[in-house]
Every structure is written in structure tokens, then in C-alpha cells.
């Protein structure tokens, strides 16, 4: 392990003060499941680590007036407690089950996952489809932005000097909404997704058409998770039936541009993305229409 110093803050305020004073060479670490291996591999050089893992002020899941707010230090294991049969609960049960291993889930955090800004981070497509907002906090204040704005490029977020991710929040899916998450990997657990698709559909009052559609893939055109605009357009306002799903899957073809590597070819990934999208949409359809 390359050498670095570490600062353990006594509170959130203390952490933000430290970061403010050392913004140029301090790197925050949450669970460490993503960052520590990268430091060891020298993919990241670090002089000072700011350990956020003990900040209980940032470890919460609040559900108030149909809004869910999750503190950045909430672990994936903490999320597992949300398994309560609601639309959100079912989604999170599915996602956490497919996330790493029980060991990883104990220490990996929501904040760490989002700030890694990488296609291997399962929560990002999920939160994109929930139209999540993120709250960047600093010593003298905070600012909110959409998750999309927050993700600048691979391994790059919109966090400025002295800022950390404090919270992610979104409207709780209502009774006419459905979520789905499909993940493809080469074995049943502890995998980095080859392809993953998250879908959120909300129907109108009598469930005759789609009022809101948000689709995200772990990779679409670039190296980070993105929303699939063409697919969403193809779904919006349409009846929730097979032809709509077919058209949505077709339109994915237009906006997907993946690359090949030693794990899989671009052609296979695109094929698989279409299949996963179809399955995610059918899953949503079944939930909404009670199929």
C-alpha cells in the first residue's frame, strides 16, 4: 500500500472543516471497497485520506411525505432493511441481493457507490431511474443537483473543492409505479455487471398509458451509466402493452454504442441490453397491470 496520512473527523462539521482546509490533497473515503483496491493498484494517488466511515450523521434512511432521503454513509446492508413489500422495498431487495457479496454489502456505502462514477456501480442506474437528486455539502453550505448533473465523466463527479456527497433523495414510487433491475454477469454473485438495466415506469390513474418512463443502463454510449432518452421517448404516453415494449427495445438500438473488450463483444452486449430492457419492461408491466 502506498503511503498516505489519514484524518479521522470527530463529527460531520469537523470533516467538512478539514476538507475545506485541505481541499487540494485530501480524498474522502467511505466504505473503501472501491477506493482501497484502487489505491493499492496505484490507480489513485493520495496524500491524505479523510475517513468518513464513522460519520453516523450521514447514515440514515428517511421516508417522509413520499420522499426518501438516504445519507451517503448508509451501507448496502442498511438498505437491505428496506425490504417491506412496497415498490421501493421490492426494488431495493432485488438490487442488494445482486450487489457484491454479504461481506461487501456490510461496508460499501451509497455515497461511495455514487461517487465512484463508474459503470460497475449498481446503484447509479437505479437512482437515475428514480430521478434522484444529490446534495453536495461543504463547510459553509450545500447545493442540490440532479444525479445526472453530478456525474460528469468516468470517475469524475461535480464535487468541488471542500465538498462531499451528503445525501441522495428521490420521490417514493407511488402505487401506479413499478421498478425493475436486470443485471447480467458470468456467475450468480460477486460480479461486475457486463450489462445492467434499471427501469422505472409510472402509469396514469386508470393505468391505460405510461405517464413517466425512466430507463438507465450501466453503459449506453460512454463509460458511465446514462439514461436512455430514445427509449424513454418511445414509452412516454404509450399504452403499456407488447407493441410498446417492442418499440422501446427497437429504439435502444439507435442510441446504444458499446465497445468490445476481452470479456465480451459490443454486439453481444447490445444484444443482451435489449433482452434485459425487454425483461425489465415486462416486469414493470406485470407489476402495474397486476399481470
Amino acid at each position, binding site marked *: *500500500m*502506498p*503511503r498516505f496520512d489519514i484524518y479521522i473527523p470527530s463529527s460531520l462539521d469537523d470533516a467538512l472543516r478539514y476538507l475545506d482546509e485541505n481541499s487540494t490533497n485530501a480524498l474522502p473515503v467511505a466504505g473503501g471497497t472501491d477506493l482501497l483496491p484502487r489505491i493499492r493498484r496505484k490507480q489513485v494517488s493520495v496524500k491524505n485520506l479523510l475517513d468518513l466511515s464513522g460519520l453516523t450523521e450521514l447514515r440514515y434512511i428517511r421516508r417522509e411525505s413520499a420522499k426518501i432521503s438516504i445519507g451517503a454513509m448508509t451501507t448496502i446492508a442498511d438498505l437491505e432493511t428496506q425490504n417491506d413489500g412496497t415498490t421501493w422495498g421490492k426494488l431495493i431487495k432485488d438490487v442488494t441481493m445482486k450487489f457484491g*457479496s454479504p461481506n461487501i454489502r456490510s461496508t460499501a456505502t451509497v455515497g461511495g457507490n455514487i461517487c465512484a462514477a463508474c459503470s460497475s456501480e449498481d446503484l447509479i442506474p437505479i437512482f437515475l431511474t428514480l430521478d434522484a437528486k444529490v446534495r453536495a455539502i461543504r463547510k459553509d453550505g450545500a447545493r442540490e443537483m440532479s444525479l445526472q448533473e453530478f456525474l460528469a465523466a468516468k470517475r469524475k463527479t461535480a464535487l468541488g473543492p471542500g465538498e462531499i456527497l451528503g445525501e441522495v433523495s428521490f420521490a417514493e414510487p407511488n402505487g401506479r409505479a413499478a421498478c425493475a433491475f436486470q443485471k*447480467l454477469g*458470468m*456467475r*450468480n*454473485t*460477486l*460480479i*461486475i455487471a457486463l450489462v445492467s438495466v434499471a427501469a422505472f415506469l409510472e402509469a396514469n390513474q386508470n393505468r391505460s398509458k405510461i405517464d413517466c418512463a425512466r430507463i438507465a443502463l450501466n453503459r449506453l454510449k460512454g463509460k458511465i451509466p446514462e439514461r436512455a432518452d430514445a427509449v424513454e421517448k418511445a414509452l412516454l404516453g404509450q399504452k403499456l402493452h407488447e407493441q410498446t415494449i417492442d418499440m422501446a427495445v427497437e429504439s435502444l438500438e439507435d442510441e446504444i454504442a458499446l465497445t468490445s473488450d*476481452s*470479456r*465480451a*463483444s459490443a454486439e*453481444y452486449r447490445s*444484444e*443482451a441490453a435489449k*433482452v*434485459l430492457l425487454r425483461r425489465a419492461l415486462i416486469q414493470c408491466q406485470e407489476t402495474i397491470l397486476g399481470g
Partner: protein
Amino acid sequence: MTEATLLQKLREGEGFALIGKRLQRLDALGKVLGLPLYTSDIAPRDALKIKVVRSTVPHALIKGIDTESAKKVPGVLAILTAHDIPGINEAYALLPDRPLLATAKVRCQGEAIAIIAAEDSETAEEAGDKVRVEYERLPAVTSPIEAMKPDAVRVHEGGNIAKYLKIRKGDVNEGFRQADVTIENTYKTQFQDPTALEPEVGMAWLEKDGSVTCVGSMQTPYYVQTGVARVLGISPDKVRVIQATTGGAFGPKSDEMPVDTCAMSALVARKTGRPAILAYSRHESMIAHTKRHPFVIMLKTGATNDGRLTASEALVVSDTGAYASLGPLVIIRACFHATGPYVIPHVKTDAYCMYTNNTMAGSFRGFGSPQVHFAAESQMDELAKKLDMDPLDLRMKNILRPGTLTATSQLVDEACGLEECARRATEAAEWHTRRREFAGDRSTFRRGIGIALMYHGNSLGPEGNDYAYVHVVIKPDTRVVVRTALTEYGTGAISGLAQITAETLGLPIDLFELDRPDTASCQETGPTVASRVIVIGGRAAQIAAQKLKHKILIVGADLLHCEASSLTIKNGLVSHLQDERRTVTFQKVVEECYKRHVSLTETGYYIAPKCDFEAETSQGTTYQQYTYGAVVAEVQVDTELGIVKPPRITVAYDVGRAINPLSLEGQIEGGTIQALGYGLMEQLTHVDGVVANPTLGDYYIPTSLDIPEMQTIIVEYPGAVGPFGAKAMGEPPVDLPAAALANAVANATGSRVFELPLTAEKVLSAIRKAQ
């Protein structure tokens, strides 16, 4: 009764006390308590940590090695290159083609160039990063087929063929003339990483008398002794090697790797006077250690319309990487088993072991057998499809049975349980019912069932002298120590030796202890490979036990005033066979032996008969006995994504005699899952000679969530060689699952994948092609 007769009776198995019992292993307690057992656990606190600077390119001249900035890092105690080797700069398993440290050239990624020793591993690593190696890159050959071309890049001066051999049986042209149907296919297999959970590690220190002691994770202490002595330029009797508890091995820890770790540690110890330890990181391990040979196999098979095989022509090519390791022996086994376990009158097989600039391939459980069985068994199913026959029927028509001849014209003896294995596996797996059930399946998640059969020539066969030494000591307190340089690394085989010894002596197992393999106290005994601990080591253990029993009975006879031949050892007593009242305790006899200076330390030595076959045609006796087996795999294929899930697998093996069915099941289950990984998800990928995925986050072995429901069937046709008729069973369980899965996938989808592993992409591609 002579010793030979006694052994004969024992092998025929008349009323076993312990053989066949599900006894607990002798070495489990320390493991479940997490006691410090492995090399890194027992390293001296002041041991220097070693970091190896390795080649980052597949083929290059070394123009310069600059260690100046590295030397300046505080806490660095030594930096060694090839020039610092006092002995011979060589570390090879078979062919003298490999240096310990590179000099003028590197031939693969990961080749060791310099050794850094420092007070701690961070310092060693920091210094390692500062070493500058100047490479002049050379073109690299990365495919074994390319390596066969006359204008291919030369990996070694002598050309790219590390070994060639052939089988010529009958006249293959005549055979194809007799065939009504001929099929021809090319099959490919991949590099598989052994992924022992404990990466390679070795350590060394100097003794007061200047000799060297090495402790490490290894399969064969005497190979390490020879290798370290050679590098240090000292006599082997000045090198003591002790095997520490070893966290998995599977073959790669039997050849170059433990020599590397121990020799490098020994060089540092010699230079600095301090103990030194070299523990590979996982990343380093996956690049540097030996893997399973990838193969390209071209098979042409001919048969009559009613399904009788007439001819087989095969070109079998392996990629052994930059250094041969045991590639020349792997190709022999592959060559001899390339037809699969069938009677074929005309056989022509040409087998090549090729050098490339990929990383090294070497010994790995199965040793060529999994690769050729994937090809042979896929081919049988393709033939069945062509002939419109049930794949089981086609096989039953052609399998080896007692009295038939193998591809090397060896006569199959009565100890051939292949037919029973096939029958019982397919019955248990409900072969016919499932085939009918799956036949019309056009659903998205399509099911299929596939079968594969195998034979596995036992022990070393043509690979070398097949002998073993086992020492057995009865201590004054009657506890019995079994000591040998054969090693335990998970198989449970050494506990099995104790069980065999206990059976032979007539003693309860709880008297027994195992001792550490140590060149100071154990005779050189050949390698612990080829599943030979039970078969060959077991015979040696029996002989040692027999000698001790003889002595006990002689002294007992003296105490009881009778003939030794009328006594037996049972239930802690030496008693008269006819009159149970005439008895003396085992304890008393042992005390008496010690009083009379009758040595109760005996060494058993056994050597298997040599194999005898014609060099040009490979016709003759290639192995002393064979293990047989059948695997039936069921799959469910997601036909939209190509993902293969294996809900169920049924295996049946003719094991000769199950010494300990509990440990045997453990080996069978473990081997099956290792082969499941080989079939479905494991692929160590080289891109232009550089390993693309040397991490466990990107190289997938099966987890607990990936395993099928499994049923194991044990069949016993006692063999001629092993104790109580036991056959080799360490390796055979990995030979077939990949083949059975490939056949099941073809059954499910109607299209075949000719390459391992059966990734989703390949399966989907085959499905699309068939549509």
C-alpha cells in the same frame, strides 16, 4: 503366509475394519480452530520481505536493468539480479529451458528479473517500482497453431516444439474407408487458473552451520531441495526443505513455483544473513504461475451406419507458454486419451506441445485429460447426431470393456467399471425420461441433458518412475506416526495413508499421527501428483505396516509361546486366532520390543511396474490401471442471453476401492465444481501475450451460489495396483463435467459450442447460427 499372500488377501478386502469407513481426517482440528499453520503464519518476525520485479512484456531483449534509485530507498537490504546467483541460474521442472532470473531476454510476461528484499513489503514494493528495465521488444507468437508455422517467431533457439509424439494403431485410411459416416471438427480450450486460495509463498533462513532451511507452500519438497541447491551452488544435503500446511495446490505448486519462492528467499538469506519470505500477491500469482494448458484439437472420426467406430484421426496441440514446465508430459497423457474410452481399431494421433510467448502452462489436475475429453465427448455427440442415435446408445456400442483394446492396444482387464458407471449415472439422472421431456422444448429457458465418459490412466504411467517411501513409527506409548515426503494439500490422501496403515496393522485410527514432510526425516519419494498418494504411497504404507506387524507378532509369539502365524492384532490386543484367551496387550508387546531393542521404525518402499510401449507407435502398456467414470449434466439455457445454468449433475466413478468414502466424496465434489468453472465461466485471457484479467474480481471461479444439485455414485472394480484395489481419484473428477455440460447445452439448443468456456456470448452465437 508370505508377505505377498497377506497383501493379496488384504487387497481382496476380507472384512475391513477401517477401509471403506467414513473416518474423520487427522488434520482437521488445527484448520477449524484457525491455528497458525501456513507459511505466512509461521514466518519469523525479522524475516525480510521480498518483492520480485517482473517482465511487463511478452517477448523482449533486456538492454539494461537500472537498480540505482531502488537501492537508495531506506530499508532496502538487497537487490539481486541474475549476476548475483552463485550457482546455476536455472529453475525448471523438466526441460532445462528456464532461468530463475532473466538475463538477456524475457520470453513471457511475469518473468522474474530482479529480487528486492526489504524490512517490510511496502518498502520492497516502493523500491521495486523504482527499478528501470530497458526492453527492446521482439515480435511475439501467442497462438500454438501460429507457433507451428515454419516462419513463426522462435521462442527458444531449438524451435517451438517442446514435445511431439504419436499413436499409430492399425491403418487409419483403411478405417475411414470402412466408415459410412465421417465427421471432422476443431475444438479449443482455454487457460484455466488453478486459484488455490493460498497464493504461492516460500521462505528461507541460514542455519548456524551454513546450511539453508526452506519452508513453503508446495507439493514436492525434494524438487525444491534440488532446485534451491542448484541455484545456490551447494550440495542438496545442505538444503533442508519442509512443507508447511499448503492452502490448495492442484498441480502448479509441484513444479517451478515453489522452487522460485524458496530459491529467491534462500538467495536473500544467503546475501543478508536474515530470514526472508516471498509471498506472491494474487495479481502476481495469476500472471506468474503455471496454468492449465490450452489445447486446439482437430478430430476426424469415422463410424458405420449402425454406430460402430472404425477410425480416429487427431491432431492435438497444446500451448505450454514460454517455458515447458511439465508440458511434455501433459501432452503424453493427452495423446494417449484423445480418443476417449472407446474401442477403435484404427487410430492416428499426432500430438504437439508448443512454446509460445504466453505465460506458462504446466501441471494442473487432470493433466491433459479434461481437454481431450471435452473434444472426444463432444465429437461422440456430434457423431450420434449424424447417425440419429441416442448419444448413450452410441457410447455403449463402443466403450472399453474387459478384453477390448485401448487406442494404444493395451488390453483392458476385468477391473473396468465403465459400463456400470454409464448405466448407473444415466439411471439416476433419468436419462431417457429427461431426453424425451426436453426434446420438444422450445421455451426461452430451454433444458438439456448431456453425458460424457472417461478413462484415466493411473498414476505416472509413462511420465516417470512411479515409487514411494512411507515411514511408520510405533512409539513407546503405542501412538503411531506416519511420515512421508508425499504431501497433503487438501486431498485428505495423507490421512488415507494413515487409514491404510491402521487397517494393515489392525490398530484403531485414533492412535495415529501425521508428521510434517521434511527432507531431513523423510526419504525422497517422487512428486505428490498424478493422484498417486493412495495408489503408490498406499502400497508403500502397507509394506511398512506389514513389516512392523511382523515384528510385533514375532515378539508377541515369544510372549505367548506360540507361532507368529497364529496371532493377529485386533482391538488393542495381540491375540491367538483360535484361542482368544491367549492374549497380551499391544502396549505390552510394544514395551517388550523397545526393551529388546527391536526397532519399531520401518520404511515401506513400493515401485509400480514400468510401462512398456513402442516409442514410434505408442502401442503397448501405457498405464498400469485405469479409473473410469461417467458424468451426466442437466442444463437450463437462457436462449435470449446464452446464459447456462446447471441445475443438476450426476457422477459415477469406478474408484477400485473407496478407502474413505467421506474424503472421496469431498474430492469428487470439489473436482466437479472446479471443472464446472472450467466449463462455464473460467478463462484467463491473454491479449497479445499479456494477461488481461489477473484478479479474482475479473476471473470467476464458482461460488456457493453457482453449484448444481449433485449426486455421486461410487462403483468399485478393484484394480491390480493400489492398496485394497484402490484407483486414482484425485484428478479424474475434473475430466468430464465440462464435456457433459457442452453436450447438455448442445442438446438444449440444437447447436454446439466448440470452445471452452461455454460463455453466454458463445452459446448465444451458436444459437443464432442454428436459427
